[in-house]
């Protein structure tokens, strides 16, 4: 086996894994705070990415455009929670799933109506350089993406473990009723959680698009499937799991494409085989906490 080729495929996989991990993190954030699986997460990221593109189209530098888009997405995400999700607070999970699917359809088509259907190009925020380390070509994209993910994780960890807001978020996820009694504003925390997820989506979208051919209305749908796979693999309530899951799924995909010829064009088999395997052995995911049921 060609070692250099293997390593370069591994790096390829890691960089797409970072993208899956970012979106999976967003899914996990929402799932942890609200117990909802947000099927519109990809389309929320898509909308943010179109917004980022629009800002760069106005002449803003990419980094600034992403920063503005992240802030705007935070506000948008909080708004979505308050206006669309909150009214269904007491409904059955199925109704909430349908509501997020409605949001999915609406956001996808609104993005096309507002920003146009033609394919858009979005410049990468990372410089294009390739280093050669011992025969393996390492692109600055990969390094940048891995760095970005590390920073994201660090910030989230600090937020959740070292701030009052983070403590309140964790408390709300664990027991909303008690929080309300303690004077924590549960509604505000839920909005904060959704806002955070939308902001993460904006970052993920802005880094995924330059690695694909162009920004179109379908850009995020494929990514979302892999992000779901990543979140399921890691466990829906574990941010660490989302990151590890994302990287594993990314690498597994890259290696499947390279080495498993019979799976040509149906590489999707791989992440789902992984999910299935993991769920059969450990239904709560690799890092998730098992649910104990009281009869």
């Amino acid at each position, binding site marked *: 086996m060609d070692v250099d080729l293997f390593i370069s495929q591994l790096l390829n996989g890691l960089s797409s894994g970072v993208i899956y991990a970012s979106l999976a993190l967003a899914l996990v954030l929402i799932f942890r705070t609200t117990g909802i699986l947000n099927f519109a997460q990809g389309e929320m990221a898509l909308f943010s990415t179109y917004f980022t593109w629009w800002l760069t189209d106005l002449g803003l530098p990419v980094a600034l455009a992403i920063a503005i888009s992240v802030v705007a997405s935070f506000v948008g995400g909080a708004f979505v929670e308050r206006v669309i999700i909150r009214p269904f607070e007491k409904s059955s999970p199925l109704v909430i799933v349908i509501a997020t699917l409605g949001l999915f359809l609406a956001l996808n088509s609104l993005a096309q109506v507002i920003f146009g259907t033609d394919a858009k190009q979005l410049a990468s925020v990372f410089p294009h350089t390739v280093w050669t380390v011992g025969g393996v070509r390492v692109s600055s994209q990969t390094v940048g993406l891995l760095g970005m993910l590390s920073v994201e994780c660090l910030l989230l960890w600090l937020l959740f473990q070292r701030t009052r807001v983070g403590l309140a978020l964790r408390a709300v996820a664990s027991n909303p009723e008690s929080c309300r009694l303690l004077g924590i504003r549960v509604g505000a925390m839920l909005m904060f959680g959704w806002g955070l997820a939308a902001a993460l989506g904006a970052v993920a979208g802005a880094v995924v698009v330059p690695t694909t051919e162009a920004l179109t209305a379908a850009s995020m749908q494929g990514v979302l499937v892999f992000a*779901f796979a990543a979140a399921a693999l890691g466990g829906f309530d574990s941010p660490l799991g989302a990151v590890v899951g994302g990287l594993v799924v990314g690498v597994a995909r890259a290696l499947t494409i390279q080495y498993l010829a019979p799976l040509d064009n149906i590489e999707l088999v791989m992440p789902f085989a992984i999910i299935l395997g993991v769920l059969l052995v450990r239904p709560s995911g690799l890092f998730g906490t098992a649910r104990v049921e009281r009869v």
Partner: protein
Amino acid sequence: MGGRAGLAARVGTVVIVVAVLAWLPQYYGTTDTALFAKALYIAIAAMGLNLLTGYNGQVSIGHGAFFGFGAYTTAILMNDHGWDFLATLPVVAVASFAIGAAVGFPALRVRGLYLALITLGLAALFPDLVTKYVHGTGGTTLVQPPQPTSPSWATGFAPQNDQWRYYLALAIAVVMFVIAWNLVRGRFGRALIAVRDHEAAASTIGIDLARTKVTAFALSALYAGIAGSVGVMITGLATAGRVETFQLSIDFLIAIVIGGTATVAGPAIGACLFVFLEQAAQDAFPRQPLLSPAIFGIGLIVLLFVLPDGVVGGARRAGRRVRQLTRSRHRPQLDPSTTT
């Protein structure tokens, strides 16, 4: 409502509804008939998904794949092997049931949202499988079988081919709904509901959890497969884009949620509402076809807000309210439908 009078009233309602459905293509033109036929096959698939999601509590967002499987099986058998449309149905039924059972096995370990994810994978994978293994018209994945035409003995009521196809779809839909109605009222239906509401309790009273869940999955796959066959018969085209497969899976879910989960009439009403709302959203802004999913999505959210338990659930609540107002206040009535 119960006993013989209730049953008679229900059968009467069904006869009237079927009569109206049978009259539709006599009055409306080709375009509308195609729309009604679409409502019929969406209703079949939604009924199947309702067995799984509504009665058994297992959410699937991958039934578009089973629909596609049925569509391709019928299309290929008719196109490449010269089969008659009706002859393909048993094949589709058996094959979809078997595949559904195979896919349903993970459902024994994987529950709720995780199951939804596995089925999402099914919807994402199916188009890739089709692209890899199906070689249709001009090397694409499209398969266009010959559509059934109106036989000579039917010229009296269905002179046009599209009318004949509508009647075929209607007949199949009626058969499938009668089967479903009988299933959910019997032992199996009670088992489905018991497993949904409380697994542990259900297993203590002797319900085989594994068999019930896998059978529910397999049956819903069978319904989706048959719906796919009917769909291909109506549209004359089997296709499996990534978007279409996912969209169909969502469509079935939407139909049961707006119609009313865990009811027999729900999927039928929901499918009709769905097809017409979608059409209305398209007609509202004919120059802006892109806006229609937006309007539809927002409309869906509003509808969920107004009628969280669907049209049938809303109607039942309204009916109870009316009965409470008209009956004596000294005898509080216990409605059997609230127990589920």
